[in-house]
């Protein structure tokens, strides 16, 4: 048994909130570079260049890459040999409160969905915990902007709809989103499970580094095919037209019921952020 204090968690979460919002993950930045190099449409190439300039500017001025510094989605892989000293969930919320305050990040959370009063400190965090083997605590903060989140969709397809039904739903989601989610986008796709599970799969899929394929070759091929279909839509960076509509797409799956084929598409933008620390 190893002890980790709530204070260590607070400090780590605060650091991760700031880092995630100011430094784009290397795989996402590399994908932007590669897409710009292979983009044939002049306006699209120019637009991708400006997105690269923005990353440089954010780094130089210590500014958030995007003003929508998001809902703080915190993913925890908690080793079952770990004992947390103090209140675990409260520590995560407190880390978010500190990170968003000290990092001059935007407070975008309202306490109630209909009465809409801002909590002024970006809490609460959205927390997902998985208990795993070992004595480590792996914390990932993935701030999620809502320009893209609002374009996400979920469908309870029929088993007869099959893989074609899934493909059509994913491509249709991107077509309907058009310029709204700040393309080039990143997609997390969930297939299977239940109504709630499939959305969680889609969200979790956004954590996978771009360019890393699904370990199951069947789904790796499906990821490649979907990416190609989406980039044939012509939406392009910012929706102004071009080849680069989607930087990457990850599929996660789960066993499901004989009567169902749930599918969920979580849309993210070119500022797909995540930062991880291991305690």
């Amino acid at each position: 048994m190893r002890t980790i204090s709530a204070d260590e968690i607070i400090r780590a979460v605060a650091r991760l909130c700031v880092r995630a919002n100011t430094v784009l993950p290397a795989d996402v930045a590399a994908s932007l570079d590669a897409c710009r190099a292979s983009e044939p449409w002049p306006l699209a190439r120019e637009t991708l260049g400006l997105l690269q300039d923005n990353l440089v500017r954010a780094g130089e001025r210590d500014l958030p890459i995007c003003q929508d510094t998001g809902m703080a989605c915190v993913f925890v892989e908690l080793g079952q040999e770990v004992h947390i000293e103090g209140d675990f969930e409260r520590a995560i919320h407190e880390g978010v409160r500190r990170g968003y305050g000290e990092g001059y990040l935007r407070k975008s959370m309202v306490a109630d969905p209909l009465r809409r009063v801002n909590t002024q400190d970006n809490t609460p965090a959205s927390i997902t915990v998985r208990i795993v083997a070992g004595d480590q605590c792996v914390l990932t903060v993935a701030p999620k902007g809502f320009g893209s989140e609002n374009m996400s969709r979920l469908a309870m397809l029929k088993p007869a709809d099959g893989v074609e039904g899934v493909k059509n739903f994913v491509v249709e989601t991107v077509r309907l989103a058009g310029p709204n989610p700040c393309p080039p986008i990143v997609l997390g796709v969930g297939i299977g499970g239940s109504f709630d599970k499939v959305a969680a799969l889609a969200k979790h899929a956004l954590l996978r580094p771009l360019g890393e394929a699904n370990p199951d070759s069947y789904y790796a091929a499906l990821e490649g095919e979907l990416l190609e279909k989406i980039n044939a839509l012509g939406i392009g960076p910012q929706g102004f037209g071009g080849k680069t509509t989607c930087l990457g797409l990850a599929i996660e799956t789960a066993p499901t019921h004989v009567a169902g084929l749930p599918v969920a598409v979580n849309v993210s933008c070119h500022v797909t952020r995540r930062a991880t620390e291991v305690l």
Partner: protein
Amino acid sequence: MQCKLTTPVLKEDLKQLREGDTVLLSGVIYTARDAAHKRLMELLDRGEKPPFLLENSVIYYVGPTPERPGEVIGSAGPTTSGRMDAYAPRLLDLGQSVMIGKGARNQAVKDAVVRNGAVYLAALGGAGALMAACVKKLEIVCWEDLGCEAVRRLEVENMPLTVVLDAHGGDLYERGPAAYLASLN
């Protein structure tokens, strides 16, 4: 075509713009997004004066991050404009000449743009640090309780924007992707 515009933006100056043109905008613009638009409507319903002159005004749909000490503004890219579609036609009919945001608009907004000789310009979505560099001065005008959604008066210099909806019915979000796809054949 690239065009320089200075506020107040007169409808006459907007006639020359076509979807796909780039604009460098300088002068005074006002920020307002979801909650500020809602309050603006309530105020107009009560017959009260708006917090800034709507005639020939420029409204930027943005909620910036807080500014660090010594900085004018934090990160300040556009938010999704479609959420303001419910309010925009009324403001355009009252004289607003320029909307700045990102993302698609509905038919009612497109019609109001043409009817009033206005334009809808796109700022670079997700490029808040770059957009912030154009802001030289910031003052809160009203509704400070809304935090990032408070109405701010910004003085901007050479803010890089792209014409999406022009006064003649042009729409870059339709024409741009279509032109790219046509180039493949």
